[in-house]
């Protein structure tokens, strides 16, 4: 049996791993499907303290991994398929078997929200992408669109514009109502290759073997139309990865609820940190901050329950 199992390897999970490992608790860290988390899909991170020249997202995560391993964290590749929190020790089922722990730190983060429209699954990876930094190069001189109106949509559009012929930003909102922050929006608007299409809902992804367009509907006039495209990138936000905790931990809008200024969940001995419990800030540094809190609280919990 383990003292601590940490699920997730974004900034929250790795920070919790560094702290618990350094405290001699020999945490088991389960990576989940996306080892290193969201930061591995970003390019330069300019606002993480301590890196005045910026740092590449994947490099930052690799450094965190090394730091956790240096103190004795055991990082295991694999996904958690089920958890049993009904009694302690908690049971965690992975691809490869079952593990038990006295405390659990849930740092499962979030996944890209999907459209949930026909054609989405069929053309996944065939012109439909959620990662502009990965796939922009395959769309050189092509016509593509980004769905979304937030900062990540602006970032995707701006990045894509370096490669493609044109980018249309498809947003449900009206002009002047986009969620994107001013500097991100202005950067995208200043780019000649980027155009904005307002008040549209994407209804279907069209294609044969690969994406050839989208069916859209104007949500003010209800007018439907088709738009020819060679690539479609989704940036419509994130949803917390909490499916396996439904009915086991208290959730609000899908996020894990923690108590007041603590990372403790309603189940004694289960702590949560990072984007899976933070609907508000969702930054690498806040995730690391709550990861540290969860580690210290788990450590105190172990000390008090041993006493």
């Amino acid at each position: 049996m383990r003292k601590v199992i940490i699920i997730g390897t974004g900034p929250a999970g790795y920070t919790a791993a560094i702290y618990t490992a350094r405290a001699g608790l020999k945490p088991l860290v389960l990576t989940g499907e996306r080892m290193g988390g969201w930061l591995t899909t970003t390019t330069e991170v300019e606002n993480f303290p301590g890196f005045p020249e910026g740092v590449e997202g994947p490099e930052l995560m690799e450094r965190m991994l090394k730091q956790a391993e240096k103190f004795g964290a055991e990082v295991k590749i694999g996904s958690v398929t089920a958890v049993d929190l009904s009694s302690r020790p908690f049971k965690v089922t992975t691809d490869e078997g079952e593990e038990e722990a006295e405390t659990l730190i849930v740092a499962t983060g979030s996944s890209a929200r999907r459209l949930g429209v026909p054609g989405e699954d069929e053309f996944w990876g065939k012109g439909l992408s959620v990662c502009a930094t990965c796939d922009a190069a395959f769309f050189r001189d092509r016509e593509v669109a980004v769905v979304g109106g937030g900062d990540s949509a602006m970032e995707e559009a701006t990045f894509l514009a370096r490669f493609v012929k044109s980018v249309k930003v498809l947003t449900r909102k009206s002009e002047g109502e986009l969620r994107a922050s001013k500097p991100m929006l202005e950067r995208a608007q200043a780019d000649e290759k980027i155009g904005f299409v307002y008040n549209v809902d994407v209804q279907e992804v069209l294609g044969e073997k690969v994406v050839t367009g989208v069916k859209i509907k104007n949500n003010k006039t209800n007018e439907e139309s088709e738009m020819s495209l060679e690539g479609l990138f989704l940036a419509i936000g994130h949803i917390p990865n909490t499916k396996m905790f439904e009915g086991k931990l208290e959730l609000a809008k899908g996020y894990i609820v923690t108590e007041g200024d603590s990372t403790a969940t309603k189940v004694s001995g289960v702590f949560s940190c990072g984007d899976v419990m933070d609907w508000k800030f969702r930054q690498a540094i806040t995730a690391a901050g709550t990861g540290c809190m969860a580690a210290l609280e788990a450590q105190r919990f172990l000390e008090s329950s041993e006493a």
Partner: protein
Amino acid sequence: MTYVFTAQNFEKEVLKSKRLVLVDFWAPWCGPCKMMGPVIDELVEEMGDKVKIGKLNVDEGAAVASQFGIMSIPTMILFHDGAAVGQVSGVQTKANLAGMIKKAVKA
């Protein structure tokens, strides 16, 4: 060992291989592809006897990537007798990939 496939050896090592071959299409500038690195290495350790597993850098093997219609990375394609018998895009769990391989071994 994890094989390195290139535009030059692709036909010989993959298409004309007598064994099942799993090809991981990746690039150094792709973060999620890097996440797949350790997964692929573990898969080689566990299933290297059943299937030949290797990586193709799409920067260097652009012609191969376009031949197989790669539009997103990471993409993993399982080849049998020169034909694609399985294909998945995006970060995959080891269990997913192992399942795809096991299915093809049985077929």
